[in-house]
């Protein structure tokens, strides 16, 4: 059904649009190849390609570009993967349980034997990264991310990239507790509030909370989207962006469903039910572009102020939120260019609110709630991301 709809849409373009799309695709492929071939590799262009329409186009391109986006040098990945002692591994049972149940993540029609082999590899990658990085804690949903890397990159490359990702973008989700994950989820409602106060109010009234978006955030939507092409397209985008981008994308999905939300019964259960199920036919490219715009328009540092203000009412904000504000990293090229375009708007905003200042927590409880030192968590993500972007 969806297919026929998209065919209908492209046929409206009278073949000319199709040709145009094809030539743009070729042009993009050439640009990516060019960026990969220069010395040093033009990572800024690769980021732009990963964000812009269609993302990185094919898994073959992804195999070359994803390592660059994460600053992993492929030459230095050992040929031999370490063996894993499953018997004495504290995470093995949970990982096994989750991987065994992850059948839907594999392409339909894949022979059972092949899938079983990949599931073994999936377990190995996860355990290998966890053993090597004892500070990281497994969470249900981590396997949904790792399987995407496995299917695109193969075991060896996936191991290296997942390790890098886990110590950077996913670092907060892998703390001993999920406190920092909760704090990141706390950015969702302020974004919605800025864009559509009516939707925000309605959701607040329903007390829907933010757990409906939990699996979106911690699996980068891998757990909820059934079409693998959409998943990898989003991964292109997220790998090229700030670690908080998935929460902007979550907000954009909610905002896109404005009408449904407002028509929903103002009840926690009904709204949780409505929101947690993502429609299959989302206009991904539009939403990606919108999420990028929102990131520029309402950067985390500015939202952190909102979260801070809110904390005086609900005491939900903690140290990490402020730390986020202090470590706002340079956005990627595309987002910066967009930012320039909106400079006027920004200036107006700044004039209105005064320069964005970083609030530092003074209460000891905030520090305790943060759970760990200032060199980890989102701050670490951000610092690391800067290093990735260099």
């Amino acid at each position, binding site marked *: 059904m969806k297919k026929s709809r998209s065919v209908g849409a492209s046929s409206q373009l009278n073949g000319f649009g199709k040709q145009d799309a094809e030539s743009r695709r070729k042009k993009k492929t050439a640009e990516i190849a060019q960026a990969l071939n220069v010395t040093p590799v033009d990572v800024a262009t690769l980021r732009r390609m990963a964000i812009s329409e269609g993302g990185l186009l094919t898994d073959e391109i992804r195999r070359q570009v994803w390592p660059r986006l994460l600053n992993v040098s492929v030459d230095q990945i050992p040929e031999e993967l370490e063996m894993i002692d499953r018997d004495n591994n504290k995470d093995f049972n*949970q990982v096994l*349980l*989750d991987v065994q*149940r*992850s*059948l*839907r993540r594999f392409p339909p029609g894949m022979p059972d034997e092949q899938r079983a082999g990949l599931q073994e590899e999936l377990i190995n990658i996860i355990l290998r990264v966890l053993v090597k990085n004892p500070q990281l*804690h497994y*969470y*249900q*949903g981590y*396997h949904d991310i790792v399987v995407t890397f496995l299917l695109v990159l193969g075991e060896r490359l996936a191991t290296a990239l997942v390790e890098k990702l886990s110590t950077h973008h996913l670092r907060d989700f892998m703390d*001993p*507790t*999920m*406190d920092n*994950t*909760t704090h990141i989820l706390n950015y969702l409602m302020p974004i919605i509030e800025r864009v559509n106060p009516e939707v925000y109010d309605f959701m607040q*009234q*329903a*007390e829907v*909370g933010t*757990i*409906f978006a*939990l*699996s979106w955030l*911690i*699996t980068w939507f891998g*757990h909820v989207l059934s079409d693998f092409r959409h998943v990898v397209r989003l991964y292109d985008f997220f790998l090229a962006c700030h670690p908080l981008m998935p929460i902007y994308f979550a907000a954009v999905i909610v905002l896109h469903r404005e009408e449904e939300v407002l028509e929903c*019964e*103002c*009840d*926690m*259960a009904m709204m*949780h*039910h409505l929101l*947690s199920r993502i429609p299959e036919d989302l206009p991904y490219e539009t939403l990606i572009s919108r999420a990028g715009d929102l990131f520029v328009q309402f950067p985390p540092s500015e939202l952190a102020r909102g979260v801070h203000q809110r904390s005086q009412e609900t005491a939900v904000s903690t140290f990490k939120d402020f730390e986020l504000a202090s470590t706002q990293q340079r956005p990627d090229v595309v987002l910066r260019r967009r930012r320039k375009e909106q400079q006027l708007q920004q200036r107006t905003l700044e004039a209105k609110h005064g320069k964005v200042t970083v609030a530092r927590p003074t209460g000891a409880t905030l520090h305790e709630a943060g759970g760990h030192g200032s060199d980890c968590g989102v701050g670490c993500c951000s610092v690391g991301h800067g290093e990735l972007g260099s």
Partner: protein
Amino acid sequence: MADIESSFEFSSSLTSSSLPPPRTRIFKIIVIGDSGVGKTCLTYRFCADKFPDKTEATIGVDFREKVVEIDGEQIKVQLWDTAGQERFRKSMVQHYYRNVHAVVFVYDVTNAASFRSLPAWIEECRQHALGQEVPRILVGNKCDLRHAAQVSTDVAQQFADAHSMPLFETSAKNPYGNEDGSRNNSDHVEAIFMTVAHKLKSQKPLMLSQPPSRPGDIVTLRQEEEDRGLWGCSCWRS
């Protein structure tokens, strides 16, 4: 107040004339237990009237509901299926304990560890102010795999008795119960949730009123529990 209105409307003698026609009452039941014991299968089986072919790890909480008829009244049974992994529980699942009317504890009869975790789950409920006054039942799942059972019915029954809960053993997977393929009463999923629903209905509206969301908001009246021991019957023949 908003969620109280949306969850329950029962006519009061004072205001019934000014209220709109009563809406469907909702019974909110939370389903908890270790990872992989089959909470998702159970809730799906009840709400969709069929067996899921594949289930995945639940991340956060999932929600299913079904409208049932009890003594001529339409009632919405709302099931909150929760993540089993411990790390999700502290900061994530709390929200969903609010206004819960009943609790279903699930363990896997082929996994002794999941049975040993039950006291911790009971304690978690207690911390969320869900004590013995709230209907609770114990479900031993996967009894289609009886040959691999690690938890005997006797031991489970003793535990259930000690905690004043009825015990059900079931399989949310195998529609035919016995290994010989005969359809028998092994699948009690329907009966399990209906037992809870009947119990909740028999408690009358006062018992089902919800704790105030804010201190001083409203005073919750609770019927004195006549019976603090086993409630309902442990009989699960269909």
